[in-house]
């Protein structure tokens, strides 16, 4: 092959340095460290130190002309009325909150709307479910479709709050106002993302005290709080993606209790507790070291986490359908699709749990906004 020589010339630099693989000699994802209970103490702080180096570089990488558009954003927000829908939100406003509005609340294409449609189909029994999909399908039909359903209707130890999807119906307006009300440049100025908008723990290698990032997307401009959505939500989201020992599925976080409701497994209780501890450390350090102590950003970050967890639940349901879930199998070579349903349930469960845990932080801001 005559071209091999040409390619060898091109790639010889890389070939000579084959030991320097991304992630070090034994790369591990940060999410695997979290799941195994190792993302604590010095390891956790070292990872955060490395991630903050990345954040500061991203702040520096934005060109001066790209950084500040906050006044235009505020003017546009002032023009939003009760009749404004998510579909009317401009690209500028949408990108100011990490493109979360149209993606989730668009009245036709939004993920939350699609979840409701799937919930409706599950509820009326128009989808074809395998025996293993029947239980999660039944749970989801209540979670996302049944009006005034409460978490305690489904989960043995959950609160009596209404399921989150109904409480989130119009919350995009509050999120926008919260984001625009912040004052510090670290909160309002945009960074150049370097394609790292999906930079959660599951997309990071951490080894020998060094952080590497993978699974990048297209670069864009976003304020830092919005950019941090995936990083922060991944502390909880990662638990839904723990692989089973055979690597073919994800660990189911739930078991049926004696009262025929779901409860999280004992192992999950331990892991979730660790996730909260690590999340709190990351959140505290972000507020102090990156956002220069602007406490109001804390509630916004939590809101982003909740929205993204619900959004990922919707993603899982869409993925389930795309792979043939809910349809007759025909020649479908995919099996074990029920894992997508369980992962969606986990995302919704933990989103509600986070919302409940940090309700004071989120409510505090909303109350002060109303007072103003």
């Amino acid at each position, binding site marked *: 092959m005559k071209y091999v020589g040409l390619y060898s010339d091109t790639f010889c630099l*890389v070939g000579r340095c084959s030991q*320097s693989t991304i992630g070090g000699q034994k790369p591990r994802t940060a999410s695997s460290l979290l799941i195994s209970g190792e993302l604590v103490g010095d390891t956790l702080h070292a990872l955060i130190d490395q991630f903050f180096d990345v954040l500061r570089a991203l702040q520096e990488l934005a060109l001066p002309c790209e950084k500040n558009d906050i006044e235009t954003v505020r003017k546009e927000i002032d023009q939003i009325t009760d009749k404004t829908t998510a579909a009317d939100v401009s690209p500028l406003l949408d990108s100011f909150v990490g493109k979360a509005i149209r993606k989730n609340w668009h009245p036709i294409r939004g993920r939350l709307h699609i979840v409701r449609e799937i919930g409706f189909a599950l509820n009326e029994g128009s989808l074809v479910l395998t025996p293993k999909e029947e239980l999660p399908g039944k749970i989801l039909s209540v979670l996302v479709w049944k009006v005034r359903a409460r978490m305690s209707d489904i989960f043995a130890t959950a609160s009596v709050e209404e399921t989150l999807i109904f409480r989130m119906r119009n919350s995009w307006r509050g999120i926008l106002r919260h984001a625009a009300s912040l004052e510090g440049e670290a909160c309002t100025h945009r960074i150049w993302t370097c394609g790292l908008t999906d930079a959660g723990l599951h997309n990071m290698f951490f080894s020998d005290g060094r952080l590497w990032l*993978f699974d990048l997307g297209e670069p864009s401009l976003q304020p830092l709080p919005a950019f941090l959505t995936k990083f922060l939500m991944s502390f909880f989201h990662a638990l839904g993606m723990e692989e089973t020992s055979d690597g073919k599925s994800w660990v189911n976080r739930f078991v049926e209790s004696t009262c025929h409701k779901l409860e999280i497994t004992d192992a999950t209780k331990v892991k979730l507790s660790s996730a909260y501890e690590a999340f709190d450390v990351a959140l505290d350090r972000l507020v102090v070291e990156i956002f220069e102590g602007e406490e109001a950003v804390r509630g916004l970050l939590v809101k982003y986490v909740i929205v993204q967890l619900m959004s990922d639940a919707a993603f899982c349901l869409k993925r389930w359908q795309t792979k043939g879930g809910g349809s007759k199998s025909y020649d479908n070579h995919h099996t074990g699709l029920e894992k997508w349903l369980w992962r969606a349930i986990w995302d919704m469960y933990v989103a509600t749990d986070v919302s409940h845990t940090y309700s004071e932080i989120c409510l505090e801001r909303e109350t002060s906004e109303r007072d103003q």
Partner: protein
Amino acid sequence: MTKHNRPPGSQNEFQTLLEAPIDEVEYGLWIAWNGRTGTASFELLPDKNLANLHRNIHTPACIGETRLLKGGGSGTTVFAGELFSEKLVWKHGGQKDTGEVFALAEIEHELLRRSAKAADELRSRIPCFRGVYLSPHHFRVRSQELWTILRQAILKWAKDEADSPHNSLHGSDHSLNKRNSRQISLCKGQTRVDVHTGSVRVFLEDCDSGPEQRVCGYDTLKVLVSCLRELQAKHFWKFSLAQVRYAFFSIEK
């Protein structure tokens, strides 16, 4: 592979390949990106099915050391495979994945015009784009449309290229400009694909003068990938997408 001896420029040059049964078209197109030189090159390589990883995955036959990689929650199949002595991470992905993997090239390009110190900080932590492999089998039952549709995609790119006063094809300027034409030639054995501004010639022939390969720059590749993504979205096609497992900028340190 069926031997065809039509001369270049033959009226039936497209028809020649379109008539070839899929089992006989066992070469795929490897579009490789070199971030250090900022150039893309094109090559036809023998095709291989990696059915042990996934029944629809195809790569160049010279790939080695393949294995499935764990992780990732999106459901996209990700695997490792060594090509030309380079360890690569591959995705068997659709148009969204193509966009995401190609974004690495865009990032590499963008970093050049931003803060040098901060750019180095990022370069040392991220992978880089290596290429896209298009197998005839990626085009599934529509394989016979492959070259027709690819031709249209390249034509669009060629037209955009011609319309842009800033773009030029690396290494092919003077001799081609004399003919008021730019050209990429893809050669492998008896297969040859010629792309000219305003026209594309696809035919099988003996390459008497030996293989010739030309390369293009980032802007050109970007348009081509954009066209490929449109096709993927339209036909639900998946390609083999490669990124380097090395942050070679950091290796040089």
